[in-house]
């Protein structure tokens, strides 16, 4: 029956030509006009209050009720604490090893055992959070800022520029990210700045694509036409009028990319092009120890690997929760 097809997705009554709107607040009757303010002040159980503050509060409330978000946040904050206070928390010096205690399996003295150079794995895992948690957010931030600007320009101006950038993005994305980063690092030489630049710039291209799509929808709205009719500059229209309206997808993109950035840094470190030894780093430590797996020294590889996995999972849990709340 036709009605069966239609109903679930179609709450009848709204359309482009006639949007359901409430009545007009009193022009003559101050008592009735006060209803609007009253709704605003009390929040009327949340549904009627649509001020920006109330929406943010409601989003936060939903996030704090989400087990995924709380779990992700707990893990993430643990690693942030490690990154900041790692040297204080770590029971041993993560760089200088013991000359006698090498390849010791996990025990009460060395919770995660020691590696082939006699360094405490637990201490290295804790201190290893630092560089990755500096580089990954910086790279993602760079990518988001550049990518957002690029996406705004593409979506707003369209035309030749949009096409050229679009094809460059296609070309870059056709190659595996690790290979691009690898080539770049080989050419320029590994350093923190290099890592931030290469990850940030590649991400910028990907983020630009998301932003562009959102901007294409926004630019057709009448407020953009109204801005043109009052002689606003293109920069103003892009960054002051449109940008705030595409902020939600940008935020989601940021958290998703942060997860990928952590993954990318760990991979590059593993390959030897990321964070350089002897600085404690999870990827580099796995690279240094995986050859001993066959000898049964599993702890030297397992714990750094779990650290990487937990951080990525945490970031993704946070990102997914934010996406579910912000983009409904």
């Amino acid at each position, binding site marked *: *029956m*036709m*009605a*069966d*097809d*239609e*109903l679930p*997705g*179609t*709450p*009848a*009554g*709204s*359309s*482009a*030509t*006639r*949007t*359901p*709107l*409430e*009545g*007009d*607040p*009193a*022009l*003559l*009757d101050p*008592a*009735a*006009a006060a*209803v*609007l*303010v009253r*709704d*605003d002040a009390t929040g*009327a*159980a*949340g*549904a*009627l209050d*649509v*001020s*920006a503050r109330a929406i943010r509060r409601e989003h936060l409330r939903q996030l704090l009720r989400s087990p995924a978000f709380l779990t992700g946040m707990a893990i993430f904050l643990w690693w942030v604490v490690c990154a900041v206070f790692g040297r204080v928390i770590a029971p041993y010096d993560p760089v200088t090893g013991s000359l006698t205690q090498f390849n010791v399996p996990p025990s009460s003295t060395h919770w995660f055992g020691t590696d082939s150079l006699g360094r405490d794995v637990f201490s290295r895992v804790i201190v290893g959070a630092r560089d990755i948690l500096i580089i990954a957010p910086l790279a993602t931030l760079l990518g988001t800022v550049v990518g957002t600007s690029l996406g705004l320009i593409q979506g707003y101006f369209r035309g030749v520029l949009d096409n050229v950038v679009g094809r460059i993005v296609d070309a870059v994305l056709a190659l595996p990210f690790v290979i691009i980063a690898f080539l770049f690092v080989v050419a320029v030489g590994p350093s923190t700045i290099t890592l931030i630049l290469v990850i940030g710039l590649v991400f910028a291209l990907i983020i630009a694509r998301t932003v562009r799509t959102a901007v294409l929808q926004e630019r057709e*709205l*009448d*407020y953009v*036409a*109204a801005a*043109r*009719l*009052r*002689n*606003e500059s293109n920069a103003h229209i892009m960054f002051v*009028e449109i940008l*705030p*309206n595409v*902020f939600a997808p940008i935020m989601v993109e940021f958290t998703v990319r942060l997860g990928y950035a952590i993954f990318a840094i760990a991979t590059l470190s593993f390959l030897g092009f990321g964070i350089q030894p002897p600085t404690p780093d999870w990827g580099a430590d796995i690279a240094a120890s995986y050859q001993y797996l066959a000898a049964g020294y599993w702890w030297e590889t397992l714990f750094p690997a779990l650290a990487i996995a937990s951080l990525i999972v945490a970031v993704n849990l946070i990102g997914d929760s934010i996406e579910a709340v912000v983009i409904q």
Partner: protein
Amino acid sequence: MTIDASPQVNAPPGQALVVDAAHVDVTYTVRGTDRLAVRDISFQIGRQESFGLVGESGSGKTTMALAITRYLARNGRVSSGSITVNGQDVASLGKDALRSLRARTVSMVYQEPGRALNPTIRIGRQVAEVYEIAGLSKADAAGRAEQALRRVQISDPGRVIRSYPHQLSGGMLQRVVIAMALASEPALLILDEPTTALDATVEAEILDLVASLREEFHTGVLFISHNLAVIAKMCDRVGVMYAGELVEEGGAREVFEQPRHPYTVGLIRCIPRRGQRKDHGRLDTIPGFLPSPGQVPTGCVFAQRCGLAKERCFTEAPPMYEVSGTRYSRCHYHELAPTLPRATPADVQLPEPDRAAAPVITLREVSKTFAARGEQVHALTGVDLDLRLGETVGLVGESGSGKTTLARVLLGLTAPDQGSTLELEGKKLAPTAPQRNRDQLRAMQIVFQNPDSALNRRHSVRYQIGRALTKLAGLHGKQEEEALLDVVHSVRMEERHLDLRPAQLSGGLKQRVAIARAYAGNPQVLVCDEPTSALDVSVQAAILNLLAELQGREHVTYLFISHDLGVVRYLSDRIVVLYLGRIMEYGDAETVFSGPHHPYTEALLSAVPSLDGALRERIALTGEIPSPAHPPSGCVFHTRCPRRLPSGICESTEPPLAEAEPGHFMRCHIPLADLRALQHVSNE
């Protein structure tokens, strides 16, 4: 006066009821809080009867329709009362019985036909499927599908069967949906705003179709609409809903001619009709606004906004009073309803526009051709138009006639073709807005149809109006602040609204912000592109009053685009009728409306249902508006023209836009005298 506590029994006795709703409450649970959306509604629909529910948005009309088919959202439920459909209590139906009810007894048609059909399946398949579910074989079902399409007056069912939904017009799709809805020969057909998304000419056809099918199928109809005139035309009886309650019920003509509830009285007064014009007086409005959903006032739901409310109204909820045998009103003082005092004084002093003055805007030979998929789409062809200071020019025509393109070209949002000339006070205007100087931009502004799109939802009211003052009027600091308050007060808003964002404002307030923004730079010309079509009638009245008042004070010229001819007539001094990007007729509003008309204008006017009951002879337009990519030869209207000349001149030669009588231009081969005779226009 008797108090009637039992459900009203209005259907003729001895006739089975299709719907019997008794004291129905519907509650939605929103985040743990129960909200009463519909309260104590009782009505009945007899077999073959057509019952209308009318009311503004948020009044609970659709909720009621969903309750009848038990299609309420998961958080909604009928919390009290009972609904019986065709003798079955809907609440007690099991899964199978409910499915059978929805499949065989009740069908629904909604506002957006495009969303009721699956875009990836051909029409023929979708219609046939309904018959297959009813148990027919594939081959039989396909045959029945074609018949069904013929029955909804689709002239070329063969083509439609092979089409996908996106290849058909909205009117055609709505016919298909109706065909599917009637496939099971249901006892009850629920139509929820079935024509709101359609053009007036198409609406008229669909309404005629529904009326004739109702006779043929002996179906009971529940017709839901915000449009009083449509309800008046389509329904035997009508129920007026307000804030979840049925406030008045009775025969459709009686209710609209002699309303007995202050809300109905107010609602009818909000609508410009009987040729009412802005210089005759302001429209009346309904003060205040709808109580927020779930708010249950102690007294009458309408008391807060009612000019007749007495102490009792605030303390004691009125029952449904029986006014006469078939009339009910939920008002303690229903006999006083017609004496409802005006909420807005009628007296108005509007200056006459100076008809001899030099035009503010001159358009000459304005054309616009879009290139789409290798085709040349002629959106505008050779438009000549003058706009004079302080006048309102109404722009009417079906969708696709070029109204909005003309507005965008004028504003410089769309560049016209080479050879088009636009002048502002005799000075040539650059084709696009960025090439125009600040004075020229300031001189022309627009109020868009949809304030949700026109206002930036991330910025405060203060920012949006203030920015216009800065950029257009060049004001800063203290001067800007003063001007801001000035313009905000002139649209009857208050300072406390300034720091709100659009989502916190009602539809009417949003449109006021848009008007304030447009007025910020003291424009000379304001384009109003359907400024009230997204609003409820009571809000529309206030906005129209405001536009008329501001115009009188500021001497602004309006180019007013609307599909609502009543609204256009109320506000306009002159009318321009567009068809396929050409001006078909223009002249003084009164001349154009009183006739003789161009045959296209005649058809447009006759398509609009009227609340006054004075039914015009319907001039049905056959066929759909042709594609502007391939305009017909000769007169572009000849393919649909009911008055086409037999000589064949209409097919071969395009008539010029000629002055048929002083100040009245028409693009038609038929002489004015003949049109006058054909249209029975008295020769004044």
